[in-house]
């Protein structure tokens, strides 16, 4: 038995492996993300803001001006917080500006950074135009621009994750955008529900329900497509987060459904739906760590 200082050896471990090893000392092959906690949180704030911006322009067209303005202000808050989170991940503001040095169509992160920058600018201008009292058409145009960029902002982050070597993100690359879209829709409904009664109470309730259904269905489809590779969504920290997300989603949807009777329940359900959307990004992010750390997933996914 090899006595290695500082390392406990199980008694039955042979000096050298007899079987053909499936990996190099069990070491990872691809790398786990080097990002900090801000990044999955940004996936949530950006996604929610994106869906809310689409609400604002649709509501304007629909004549629901109060609801539209409320949605726009919440979207603006998300658009302000998002770059702050990204800068905090990168360490210095100048580093975020480097993202806008070039536009690189092959890089989802580059396209996403430009989308975020355009989104924030359009929303800021819409707000300013509204405050200064410029004609409604100006505000509407800016809202429209943000409303077009918003749904892209809501799910480009899924493309960003899919375009990596991480086996669980890569394996779900065509369904993850649907998961993120659904979750952003539910989160937008959650934010509006939380904001309280008034115009759009029914609409926000429907958003939570439709979004939750879309997200849950897409997640199920993704898990079945992943098969054994989807294990990190069932075990460990990724699994716990995924489960917490799933439960929160259903509870949020049920409470919001009951919100027809009680505004309080709708608010509570809205808050839970928002939290569940944030949990989803955490679950996907964390599952990526597990999938990268165990080389078995990568080798398994590449077996002919």
């Amino acid at each position, binding site marked *: 038995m090899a006595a290695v200082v500082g390392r406990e050896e199980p008694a039955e471990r042979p000096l050298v492996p007899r079987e053909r090893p499936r990996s190099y000392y069990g070491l990872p092959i691809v790398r786990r993300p080097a990002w900090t906690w801000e990044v999955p949180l940004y996936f949530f704030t950006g996604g929610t803001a994106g869906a809310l911006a689409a609400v604002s322009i649709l509501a304007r067209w629909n004549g629901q001006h109060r609801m539209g303005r409320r949605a726009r202000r919440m979207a603006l808050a998300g658009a302000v917080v998002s770059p702050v989170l990204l800068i905090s991940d990168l360490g210095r503001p100048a580093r975020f500006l480097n993202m806008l040095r070039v536009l690189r169509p092959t890089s989802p992160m580059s396209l996403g950074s430009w989308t975020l920058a355009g989104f924030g600018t359009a929303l800021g201008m819409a707000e300013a135009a509204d405050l200064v009292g410029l004609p409604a058409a100006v505000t509407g145009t800016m809202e429209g621009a943000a409303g077009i960029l918003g749904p892209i902002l809501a*799910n480009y982050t899924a493309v*960003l994750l899919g375009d990596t*070597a991480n086996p669980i993100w890569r394996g779900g690359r065509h369904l993850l955008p649907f998961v993120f879209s659904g979750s952003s*829709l539910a989160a937008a409904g959650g934010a509006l529900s939380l904001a309280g009664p008034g115009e759009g109470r029914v609409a926000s309730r429907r958003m939570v329900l*439709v979004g939750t259904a879309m997200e849950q269905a897409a997640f199920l489809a993704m898990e079945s497509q992943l098969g054994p590779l989807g294990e990190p969504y069932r075990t460990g920290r990724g699994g716990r987060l995924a489960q917490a997300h799933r439960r929160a989603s259903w509870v949020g949807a049920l409470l919001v459904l009951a919100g027809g009777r009680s505004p309080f329940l709708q608010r509570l359900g809205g808050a839970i739906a928002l939290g569940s959307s944030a949990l989803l990004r955490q679950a996907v992010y964390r599952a990526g760590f597990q999938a990268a750390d165990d080389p078995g997933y990568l080798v398994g996914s*590449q077996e002919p």
Partner: protein
Amino acid sequence: MITGPRQPPVALPLWQAGGTRMGFFTDSSVCIGCKACEVACKEWNGVPDSKPAWSGNSYDNTLRLGADSWRHVAFVERVRQDDAAGVRWLMSSDVCKHCTRAACLEVCPTGAIFRSEFGTVVVQDDVCNGCGYCVVACPFGVIERREDDGRAFKCTLCYDRLKVGEQPACAKACPTASIQFGPVEELREAARSRLEQVRAQPGGEEAHLYGADEADGVGGFGAFFLLLDRPEVYGLPPRPEYRRRDVVTMWGAASVAAWLLVGGLAGALRWRR
């Protein structure tokens, strides 16, 4: 050996229009595990030292490639019952593959990673903003962010030495010519004839070239290998892949998903109260 799904090689790469693509052929069958390459690389490129630690994994304390390890010598000990020789000791010096379709280069949002006139893949550290996208995109887990300054680092294939007509430090230091440097076309020729020799010898039955085929998942490597066992045994992915087509289909899926989102919203808003 094919290292990925077969697909046509990329359209005329930039370096074919101008210069000659230069690269490495690492022949693991003659590697003696001396780690001269690891040392020479650190010396020449001023790569910070790694924290010393005993891993217990044979003679390997470097463990894997990373921001501060641009060459890594793997030591694999294998005993097979049916093997008359008893222990098989496989050694191989790993390095950035300088992929034809380099995921790190394609996904980099700042354009910090570029294709040099030698066809190699190089990071400009004054442009890199440490976003870390390349780290998760590389199919080989090569490139890594340095803890202290947050930017990404990897093998440059000694870009500075190549510019003055020198060969990379590791290839120069290798005492057994396990690391060969030259025009990739010529190296591929040499590798094919070397493979035939190795295959004819006992223990060489499973030998294969890893990354010498332009039809593989990343369009072939600029730095490829002759391996005596399956890639995963050395800590390499069996079928590395990076396809631009995937990016297109993913954006397609994302567009449909975005429309569904808008549709869901429109539906929810249609009934007013």
